[in-house]
């Protein structure tokens, strides 16, 4: 059971079950806990190799026991996501913890990843359960539906879930090269049904100043 204590600390109540969390993110625990580092994110040899190749490395530990365990990472804001059989796409650096029952993997993001400056691959989480993702400032959750597509700045995007297709939009014109661009030269457009998480801050992207 995931719950937030304040907005920057995640408390997980466990009764013999387990969670996967970012290595070293435990700040306190109560009761009996065992911490086990999972090589390759617990995705087996194939997952390990994939992560190594794709650059989506994450070091994960499995925490199991009875009691409450608290997690936090560099005072980032934490957002809870509940998954009912759908898939969450999140950057490995923004993923704090998942229920042990959720499957994690990697997926190709194409140009979006390149525009964000964090690689061509992203982490996926799927199954039934809860996950905790981190953001710089509290994330705003935006619903995308058929009649309301959403356009997002790559630097502010942190995660999305559901059945969404994404396309890459470029507003680069000759003006961009004359230093009179619109400042929003690269955008990702989401269409379909699902949720998009954006943070109130922009990472430095290659397109940050264009």
């Amino acid at each position: 059971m995931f719950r937030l204590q304040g907005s920057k600390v995640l408390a997980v109540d466990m009764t013999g079950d387990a969670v996967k969390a970012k290595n070293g993110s435990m700040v306190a625990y109560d009761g009996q806990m065992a911490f086990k580092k999972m090589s390759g994110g617990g995705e087996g040899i194939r997952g390990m190799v994939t992560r190594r190749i794709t650059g989506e490395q994450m070091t994960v530990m499995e925490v199991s026991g009875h009691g409450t365990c608290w997690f936090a990472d560099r005072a980032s804001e934490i957002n809870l996501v509940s998954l009912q059989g759908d898939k969450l796409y999140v950057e490995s650096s923004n993923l704090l913890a998942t229920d042990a029952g959720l499957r994690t993997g990697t997926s190709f993001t194409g140009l979006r990843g390149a525009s964000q400056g964090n690689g061509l691959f992203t982490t996926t989480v799927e199954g039934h359960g809860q996950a905790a993702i981190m953001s710089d400032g509290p994330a705003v959750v935006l619903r995308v539906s058929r009649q309301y597509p959403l356009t997002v700045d790559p630097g502010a995007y942190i995660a999305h879930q559901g059945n969404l297709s994404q396309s890459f939009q470029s507003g680069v014109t000759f003006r961009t090269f004359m230093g009179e661009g619109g400042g929003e030269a690269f955008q990702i457009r989401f269409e379909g049904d699902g949720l998009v998480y954006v943070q109130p801050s922009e990472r430095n992207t290659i397109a940050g100043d264009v």
Partner: protein
Amino acid sequence: MSHYPGAGPTVYDPMTLPSDDNVNNYTFCVELKGSQWFLQKGKMIAYYGQMDFNGIGHGRLDGLVRTSFHSPLHASDWVVAQGSGKMLLADRAFDVNSYDLEEGNLTIRSGNLLAFQPSLALKQSIVPGFLTLIGTGKFVAASNGPVVFMEPPIRVDPQALVGWADCPSPCHHYDHGYMAGLMGGLRAMTGLGGASGEEHQFEFVGAGTVLLQSTEVLMAEQATGVVPSEPGVPGGYGAPAGQPQQPGVPRLPGQLGDLQRRFGL
């Protein structure tokens, strides 16, 4: 947003997003209905609907720039958003707030201003590094920590100052002991012998409002553009010979006038 166990975070869609109001402390939502907003480059984080972002040098926007943009030399830091839909603005997870001006004026540190309606005119302030908004309309400003409103007369720490409205007399204030005498001069020069770090303040008097942020962490300066170098224009570079030098320029040997005064000689 609710953080009760079990309840998920609030999910927004174009219907539930506020119109020209804060979504949370760090995110502001602007509704465009065929209208326009000026925003600092790169502060849009997401939008629903159809929107265009154009640099200000854009031909079609010339008229708009002429009426509401009076600092031509830093126009390249601003873009015009136009279209219809809802747009979210945020800045490095700083607090953002909107303010309404009604036939008013407000002077703000350049790095703090995020966006404003074109019904306001943006001008460079005479005070270097600050911008003045004049007219009627809404603008969005970022600050490091929530903003506090104070009534003059007041003296404020330079790093905490966000801006001021209606006060015609912003000036520097130095603690007396800091300036006077040989020891005072030595302290000021070297920081030895105990400087509290609060010897220098900004002073405001008269009717108006002073806006302070609740930390002393400055937001990154945004270039306001250079002012023409004319006699009598503060901050104009290339001041004609005979004018006092820019502060911060190392003093040449033999130019001890100011130093002598400091030491009370």
